[in-house]
C-alpha cells in the first residue's frame, strides 16, 4: 500500500475511534443509555470482584514459599524446617492479630449510637479509589444485601460517604471529601443552638468547606447531617468538627472549614444505612 494511502487509512481509523468515543460520551448523558452503561459497569465489576478478592488473598500472606526449596544437606533441611515452623507460627499470630483487629472493628460498629434505629448492613472495604480523580472506596457487599445508590455510609466516628453505584456483590462509596459531595448539615453549639449550611468536598486530603449565614458556628462546633425534609441523609450523623471560621470584609456568610471525623485510610469495615430519602 502506498504511504499516502496508509496515512489516510490511519487518520480515518483515528477519526472513527474519536467519533465512537464522542458517541459513547453523549449516550452516557442520556437516561436510558446511562442506565445500560451502569448495568454493564456493575456486571463487569461483579465479574472481576472474585478475581480481585482472590488476588488480594494470594498477595496478603507473605510467606517463605520458596525458602529452602533448592537447599540440600541435613543441617540446611533442619534449618529450613525450623524456619518454616517459626514462620508458620508467626503468620498464625499475625493472622490472629489481623482477625482480632477485624473483629474489634466489627464489634465497634455495634456500638454506634447514631442512626441505630435504622436498618443497616456492615461491609468490608475491599478496594481503595479506582480513579485518581475521584475519591471513592469499594466495599464487599452490594444489591444482594439491599444496598443501593444514594444510601449513607458511616464508620465508627461518623459519616463516611454515599453509595454511588452498587452491583450484586460490591458497591462504590463516594467519600465525603470528593468534590461532588454536598451534604446539608447543622452546626451544633452547646450555648447558642445551631445554624444550618451545606458542606462541600474539596478533594482528597483536603478539609470540607461551607458557607453559613451569620451568626455562623464557632471553632470546635460539631457538624451533623441536618435531616431536613427532602435531605439526602437521615438526621444526626456526625460529619466533622469546625476547625476554622473566616468572615471576609463585607461578606454576609462565614466561610467555614470542617475537618472530617473519619480517617478513611484506616477504614476496614463500614456500615451502610439502608435509608432512602423521602420521595
Amino acid at each position, binding site marked *: *500500500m502506498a504511504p499516502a494511502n*496508509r496515512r489516510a*487509512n*490511519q487518520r480515518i*481509523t*483515528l477519526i472513527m*475511534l*474519536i467519533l*465512537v*468515543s*464522542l*458517541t*459513547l*460520551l453523549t*449516550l*452516557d*448523558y442520556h437516561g436510558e443509555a446511562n442506565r445500560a*452503561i451502569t448495568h*454493564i*459497569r456493575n456486571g*463487569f*465489576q461483579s465479574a*472481576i470482584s472474585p*478475581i*480481585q478478592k482472590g*488476588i*488480594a488473598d494470594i*498477595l496478603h500472606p507473605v510467606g517463605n514459599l520458596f525458602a529452602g526449596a533448592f537447599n540440600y544437606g541435613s543441617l540446611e533441611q533442619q534449618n529450613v524446617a525450623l524456619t518454616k515452623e517459626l514462620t508458620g507460627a508467626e503468620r498464625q499470630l499475625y493472622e490472629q492479630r489481623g482477625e482480632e483487629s477485624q473483629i474489634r472493628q466489627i464489634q465497634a460498629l455495634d456500638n454506634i449510637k447514631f442512626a441505630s434505629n435504622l436498618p443497616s448492613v456492615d461491609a468490608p472495604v475491599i*478496594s*481503595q*479509589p*479506582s*480513579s*485518581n*480523580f*475521584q*475519591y*471513592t472506596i469499594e466495599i464487599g457487599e452490594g444489591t444482594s444485601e439491599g444496598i443501593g445508590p444514594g444510601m449513607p455510609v458511616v464508620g465508627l466516628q461518623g459519616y463516611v460517604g454515599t453509595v*454511588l*453505584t452498587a452491583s450484586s456483590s460490591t458497591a*462504590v462509596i463516594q467519600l465525603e471529601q*470528593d*468534590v*461532588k459531595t454536598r451534604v446539608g448539615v447543622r452546626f451544633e453549639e452547646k450555648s447558642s443552638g445551631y445554624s444550618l449550611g451545606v458542606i462541600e468536598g*474539596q*478533594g*482528597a*486530603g483536603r478539609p470540607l468547606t461551607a458557607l453559613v449565614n451569620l451568626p455562623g458556628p464557632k471553632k470546635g462546633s460539631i457538624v451533623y447531617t441536618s435531616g431536613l425534609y427532602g435531605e439526602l441523609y437521615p438526621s444526626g450523623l456526625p460529619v466533622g468538627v469546625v476547625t476554622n471560621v473566616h468572615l471576609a470584609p463585607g461578606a454576609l456568610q462565614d466561610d467555614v472549614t470542617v475537618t472530617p471525623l473519619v480517617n478513611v485510610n484506616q477504614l476496614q469495615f463500614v456500615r451502610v444505612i439502608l435509608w432512602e430519602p423521602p420521595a
Partner: protein
Amino acid sequence: MGTAGMMRSKNYSKLFVVILVAVVFQQSVLNQIVVMNAHPDVLVLLAVCAGVVLGPAQGAIVAFCLGIGADLLVDMPFGLSCLAFSIAAFTASYFQKIPMHKSGVGNTGLLCVSAALITTLLYAIIATLVGQHGMLTIQLLRVLVVIGIGGIVMVWPSIHILKWAIGNDSLRHSQIPPGGSAA
C-alpha cells in the same frame, strides 16, 4: 507490509488477554498502592506503548479497548478514557518516527512515560470540558508524579508484553528497536 498486515488472529487473542489482565491488575493491585492520594496507572501507559509498538492505527484501536476497560472501572463519563487513550496512542506513534526516538529503547521508554503524563493531563482537560469538577487542581500534580514514577517502573514490562502479544513476525516489520535498557 506493515505491522497491521502481519497481525494474526492469535495475536489479537493475545492482545485481548493482555488488555483483560491489565484491567484486573490495575483494579486488584495498582489501585491499592496509594501514594499522596493517587495510584500508578498501567492502562494509560499500555495505551501509549501500544501506539509506539503497534503503529498509529492498530495502536489507537488497542488504546481504545484499554480505554473501555478503564471506563468500566470508574464512575466517570463513559468514553472519556477511550477518547484520550486513542488520541494519545496515535500521536505517540508519530513521535516514535522522529529520528531522535529511533536511536534507542531508552528514548522509547522516555517517550512512553512522557506521553502517559500528557495523556493524563489530556484526560483531565477533556473531563473538565464535559462538565466534571475538580479535575484541574493540585491533586493533578500529585497524580502526575505518581503516574510518572509508576510509569518508569512499568514501561519496560509494558513494551515487552506488547511485543510478545504482537509476535515476532510483526515485530520484524515494526519501527521499535529490538530491546535493551533505559540506562
